[in-house]
């Protein structure tokens, strides 16, 4: 199947999200769409998948004009999409999820469970997607859930598969597995659209690369192009990919974590006997696949979770069990991973978000708890300039900001206080190259100013780029603390728990 896009244009009010896009997708080909957030990749794919209607332009399939009023039309034409956020029913099995909405039925409309299972087994073998048909989806790791999503699309007989940032939540091993599946799909004559802004992946998987910027196609490249060439196309200027980082000058130990054990609500240990140190003037990256206790570690350090055993000592003072406010007041800054859920109050204004952790103190509040709104607004204006936050106005709700600008607001809030310890979880997740560059530079600046920095990242590239030391977590334990020049394969194995115990 050959899909051609001719002059697709989509405007949202004054914003031109897609401006006369010409693209084609051939059978048996992996076509990577590369671009920063807001470049128009998602809009383009939503046009192709019938989620929104174009203002101009047309879609041709095998030379035939088609019109999609909704995703159902696109699916009927053999187009399938795997979104970043999966639409699975956690309490159903793999086979049930795959058949859902497109059920195999026998006589009298009875569900044919056996054929549903057989479908899964067949697809598993054919495309190298290991998944047990009877496993409950909710109990599966993210990588397997993604396979279920891909199977759902294949079950609807998709010839063109759109994968929207498919590796965002995967381990390096799971990503490699996905790449094998993508290649198998290509061998079967299908066409795959792979959306990403990770250059390394694009080079590994793509047959063709199209780069988008500001709603236009700005370049086509072969996968043989260098990272710097691709990045420059994407951003529109040359980009320094390696953070120009001087060697760390570690000072004295700022925070010492000793034998920390934390249980979740159900009483299961999510952290077991974790011991760590972070020195002033160094960046410790905590690497690991998401969900191996990194988030819980950060939350315990800032007093959002109670430790069952062990203690946290900050600058010589035992802060275990203190309230979050008391810990923050001692010079700890925390940038949570889930910036919309735990970082910002999306419906409060930008300037209110910027004082969310300091509204109760001078100069933002006077005695008697009277808020000094003009002071808060002035404070916000200053930070908007310093952190280059692009917003209509400081009184606009934080929800109106793009992801990168939301992250800058969060960072500005945390860094506007003097810090001895900065904890940043997934600080660049979902950010485009320029925003990520900015955020990482601020982390290094904080380090150079003598702050102890702990960066939690499931993005190995980021961990390696930023870290002076890397602690790898697996199943609630720190399995190793290594230097950043440790080979990727070794880090990947540690993250996957291979040799657990031996390395620790």
């Amino acid at each position, binding site marked *: 199947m050959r899909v051609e896009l001719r002059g697709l244009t989509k405007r949202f*009010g004054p914003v031109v999200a897609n401006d006369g896009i010409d693209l084609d997708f051939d059978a048996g080909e992996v076509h990577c769409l590369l671009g920063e957030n807001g470049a128009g990749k998602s809009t383009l794919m939503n046009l192709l998948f019938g989620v929104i209607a174009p203002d101009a332009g047309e879609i041709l399939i095998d030379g035939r004009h088609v019109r999609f009023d909704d995703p159902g039309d696109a699916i009927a034409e053999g187009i399938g999409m795997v979104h970043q956020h999966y639409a699975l029913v956690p309490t159903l099995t793999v086979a049930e999820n795959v058949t859902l909405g497109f059920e195999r039925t026998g006589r009298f409309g009875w569900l044919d469970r056996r054929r549903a299972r057989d479908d899964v087994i067949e697809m598993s073998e054919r495309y190298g997607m290991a998944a047990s048909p009877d496993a409950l989806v909710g109990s599966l790791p993210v990588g397997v859930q993604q396979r279920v999503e891909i199977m759902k699309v294949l079950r609807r007989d998709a010839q063109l598969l759109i994968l929207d940032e498919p590796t965002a939540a995967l381990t390096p091993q799971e990503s490699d597995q996905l790449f094998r599946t993508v290649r198998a799909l290509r061998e079967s004559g299908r066409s795959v659209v792979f959306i990403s802004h990770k250059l390394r992946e694009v080079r590994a998987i793509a047959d063709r690369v199209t780069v988008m910027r500001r709603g236009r196609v700005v370049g086509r490249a072969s996968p043989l192009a260098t990272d710097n060439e691709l990045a420059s196309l994407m951003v529109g200027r040359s980009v320094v990919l390696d953070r120009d980082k001087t060697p760390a000058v570690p000072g004295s130990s700022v925070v010492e974590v000793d034998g920390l054990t934390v249980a979740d609500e159900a009483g299961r240990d999510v952290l077991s006997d974790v011991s760590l140190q972070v020195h002033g003037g160094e960046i410790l990256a905590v690497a690991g696949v998401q969900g191996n206790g990194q988030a819980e570690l950060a939350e315990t350090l800032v007093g959002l979770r109670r430790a069952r055993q062990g203690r946290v000592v900050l600058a010589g003072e035992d802060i275990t069990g203190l309230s979050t406010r008391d810990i923050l007041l001692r010079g700890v800054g925390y940038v949570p991973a889930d910036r919309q859920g735990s970082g910002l109050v999306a419906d409060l204004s930008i300037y209110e978000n910027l004082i969310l952790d300091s509204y*109760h103190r001078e100069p933002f509040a006077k005695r008697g708890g009277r808020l000094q709104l003009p002071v808060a607004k002035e404070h916000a204006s200053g930070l908007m300039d310093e952190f280059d936050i692009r917003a209509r106005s400081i009184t606009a709700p934080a929800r109106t900001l793009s992801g990168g600008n939301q992250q800058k607001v969060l960072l500005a809030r945390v860094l506007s206080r003097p810090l001895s310890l900065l904890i940043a979880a997934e600080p660049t997740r979902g950010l485009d190259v320029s925003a990520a560059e900015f955020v990482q530079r601020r982390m290094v600046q904080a380090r150079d100013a003598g702050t102890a920095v702990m960066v939690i990242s499931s993005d190995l590239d980021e961990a390696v780029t930023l870290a002076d030391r890397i602690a790898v977590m697996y199943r609630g334990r720190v399995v190793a603390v290594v230097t950043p020049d440790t080979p990727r394969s070794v880090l990947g194995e540690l993250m996957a728990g291979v040799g657990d115990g031996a390395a620790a």
Partner: protein
Amino acid sequence: MSELRVEESDDVGDRRRWPLLVQNFFTGGSVTVTLLSLVLAFAVGAVVIAVSDPEVRTAWANLIDSPGGATAATWDSVASSYGALFRGAIVEPSAVSEAFRGGSISAVLAPLSETVVATTPLILAGLSVTLAFRAGLFNIGGQGQAMLGATAAGFVGFHFGLPPVVHVVAALVAGLLAGLAWGSIPGALKAWTGAHEVITTIMLNYIAGILLLYLLSLSVFIRPGRTDAISPRVDGDTRLPHLLGADLRVHAGILVAVGVAGIVWWLLARTTVGFELRAVSLNERAATTAGISSGKAWIVGMTVAGGLSGLAGAVQLLGTDYALVPGSGASLGFLGISVALLGRATVTGTVLASLLYGALQAGGIRMQAATATPVDIVVIIQALVVLFVATPQLVRSSFRLPSAGRGLQVMSRGW
């Protein structure tokens, strides 16, 4: 929802036909929806009035004989009912012309006075629910809080002898404190044990009702010479003073209510406590992560909300009822929820919605007396307004307005 968002929805194309200002009027303004809800509620109310009138039903039965008679009877019934409602709530035209010929000014102001009397406790009860909403809590407990507020105010009013001004203030403060105490219980239960405030406040309503019933069986609470459950009347100097002479019932409670509305607005918008409440209600996790104690916000929010309901009960008792009976102040709980919803959980909106409800109540009594249309029609209209406001899509489609995107207004989460 007041700003126009750029969003990827199907109706973007439809909206572009309208100028920006008109777009905002159509799609953004909850004020528009509220006003249209009112129109719809009165329209549906008119149908109910017509159907419940035996004369109208007879006229429609004779439709073949006298086609004009049916529509005329319907029109007469609805027009006279709504006319009486208006005259009872706003102004009686004949009293105005009377006044020009030397009649009493009081008669002109009487309907408005009745409206304000009914509005006064509603403002306080509505603010109670609004404030709780702003802390992310749904206060169903206004009923119990108001009952105990009335009880405490009444007890201070008839049991103690205090100097004139001190006495009324003491009675109001007693009502406030009783409400604060009763409201703090569900707040603390939520903060400490996670018990949901909707459940606990409902349960506490029953306890408060039975407590009042029990108190009314004690000798200190029983009016001398009576055997039924009714307390003595409160002392003359604990009654809220009439503002416009003895002929008009409007009393100083309205000044208290409006003053408290100002304080609540200030508390929410200009203090660190209000900031905490708003942050916790809009995103508890983010607020907690930034060091705000959500437990404290819940306790403060629920306690203050209880105090406001308690004050509502006290004002009702000291301004209008004067004596405690079983269920004194109880109706304020759910009316408070209605006006807070109608006012979209804003202070100004709550005050305006209370005024509307007060006018409907005052006018309804007059309507029943003048036209034999049952006062329950008013309750139906009150309910319909809230129903329509809660379903803006229905209102928009009824008036063929473009839809306002996909955003939903969420007032309380997590249950």
